[in-house]
């Protein structure tokens, strides 16, 4: 019997061929399903990592801006307190002098039998004497000491603002923190590499002028729910005299004119307190400010194109996909191509975040937040970072990313 005849008659192994074929189909179908699922899981994880990175980094910027806001508000409030204390100081001195001269004049004409002068004398004593009498040298020294302490506080607050806006390692401090902290979180979320763009973006702030405080002081700021309001200061009592009354005396000294015979309550010369106050603050800022050397203390304000500077991009990616079930094919490529392929195979995700302020957009309220926005590469200025070769690679990847769909 020849070999061929034997082969023809032997039936064993027939089923093996179909089993091998069908098993191949079955396993490749299974591999397809498992691999796609794996890739999708990884893609979702990368998206979560990129989102977490973006939110974390953006929040650090928001925190810094909120910190600057609270320091600005503190500076404004300290300044307002200084103005008030100066007003009290001045009013105490001049008010005492005016009251005394008025009282002596009124008592003279009262003694002559002028009844209206007697009524006027009663009023003056009722308003002024309990407070004025208790003002002594000790109190004045305390007041001046407090004012100089407040100037020291102003200095510290300004130093604090400079610290937040500082540089470390040739990089804005806040950008350093945002990118390193965010990268940490992206890696905890499973990313093998994570980037933050633009890398060296600092806070969009610049030094303002002292007069930038005046608007906030007069009208109140936008984030001033807990702002020390002028009315509440005016109702405060210092040494038994209301600040409001001290300011009235201060106003009297500026006008260089005594009260009419009708008495202070009915005098048309005393305007509403708010207008006294406004004119006083304007006066302080525009004429007295420079002579006092106050222009050394400046708030930090937003720059013109701050919105573009608070727009950030994050990448999160894993370099290689470990396919669970795969039939690998090898290609003959040199090392350069291989590295390129490696990038191409990876799973990437991209997220964009803005730091924004839902209400008034200035640095006098503390409502800065971070929010994810739809990815739009046109909004981001890459030119600053283009010198860096690694970033050029990322931009290549960005272009790739837009053409790769998970499959």
């Amino acid at each position, binding site marked *: 019997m020849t070999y061929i005849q034997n082969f023809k008659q032997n*039936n064993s192994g*027939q089923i093996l061929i*179909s089993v091998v074929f*069908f098993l191949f*189909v*079955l396993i490749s*179908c*299974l591999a*397809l*399903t498992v691999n*796609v*699922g794996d890739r*999708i899981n990884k*893609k*979702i994880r990368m*998206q979560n990592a990129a*989102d977490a990175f973006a939110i974390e980094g953006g929040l650090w910027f928001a925190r810094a801006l909120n910190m600057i806001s609270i320091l600005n508000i503190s500076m404004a409030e300290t300044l307002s307190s200084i103005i008030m204390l100066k007003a009290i100081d001045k009013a105490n001195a001049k008010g005492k002098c005016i009251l005394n001269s008025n009282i002596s004049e009124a008592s003279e004409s009262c003694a002559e039998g002028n009844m209206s002068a007697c009524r006027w004398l009663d009023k003056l004593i009722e308003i002024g004497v309990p407070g004025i009498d208790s003002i002594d040298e000790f109190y004045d020294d305390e007041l001046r000491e407090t004012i100089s302490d407040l100037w020291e506080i102003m200095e510290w607050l300004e130093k604090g603002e400079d610290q937040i806006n500082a540089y470390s390692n040739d990089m804005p401090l806040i950008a350093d923190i945002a990118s390193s902290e965010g990268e940490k979180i992206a890696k905890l979320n499973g990313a093998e590499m994570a980037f933050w763009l633009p890398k060296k973006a600092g806070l969009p702030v610049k030094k303002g002028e002292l007069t930038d405080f005046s608007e906030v002081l007069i009208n109140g700021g936008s984030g001033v729910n807990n702002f020390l309001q002028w009315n509440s200061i005016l109702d405060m009592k210092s040494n038994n005299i209301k600040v409001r009354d001290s300011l009235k005396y201060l106003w009297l000294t500026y006008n260089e004119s005594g009260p009419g015979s009708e008495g202070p309550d009915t005098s048309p010369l005393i305007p509403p307190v708010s207008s006294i106050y406004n004119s006083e603050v304007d006066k302080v800022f525009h004429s007295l400010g420079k002579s006092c050397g106050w222009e050394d203390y400046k708030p930090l304000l937003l720059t013109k194109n701050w919105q573009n500077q608070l727009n950030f991009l994050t990448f999160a990616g894993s370099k290689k996909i470990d396919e669970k079930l795969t039939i690998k094919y090898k290609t003959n490529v040199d090392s350069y191509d291989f590295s390129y392929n490696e990038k191409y195979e990876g799973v990437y995700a991209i997220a964009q975040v803005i730091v924004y302020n*839902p209400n008034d957009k200035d640095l006098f309220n503390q*409502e800065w*937040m971070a*929010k*994810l*926005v*739809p990815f739009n590469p046109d909004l981001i200025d890459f030119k600053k970072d283009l010198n860096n070769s690694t970033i050029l690679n990322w931009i290549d990847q960005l*272009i790739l990313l*837009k*053409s790769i*769909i*998970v*499959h």
Partner: protein
Amino acid sequence: MNSKKSIISLYVREEGSALISFVIAFPVFLLMIFSIMQISLLFNAKQLINYAAYTAVRTGIVSYDSNQVDESQVLNEVKKSACVVLASISPKLRIASYDLEIDASRLDLYRAGLTENFIERFEMAKTLTLAKLETSEDDLRVEITYHCPLVVPIINAIIYKGYQLTSGSYSTSHSIKYALPISATCTLQIEKFK
């Protein structure tokens, strides 16, 4: 004599039995293999639709702005991002010529560096996909229904008929003969302004 002998020999001989059993069993095997292929494609599609729902709802929460909500615009964005994912399993939609000047959304896709191949699939995915938005207080819920084309012969008709018997027919806007609607939902919290 001869014919009787041949009939007897037919009972006795065993040479063709394997062939006959093969002929009977092969269609069943083939059907089984086809069903394995079709079902694995459907599982694959199900995974991608789940992912599409995730990307869609992420797009939704990111572009949702409670101060100026334009629901139809959000829905449009949501559907677009789902279709970008689902384009990879959609067949091509043959379009005679592209009028790039008119269709701005397609121009955007070209500018993004996407190939014509992708855009044809993307257009098809748009006809196959239905998106639904639901908002409760802080949550956005997106339901993506994708009419998955059944491509493996024989078994596609069986699955389609089975679907029609159990769930009735669906209203279609696409030109695919056999398609199975698969839906996925995903809910995420909206990134809202205060």
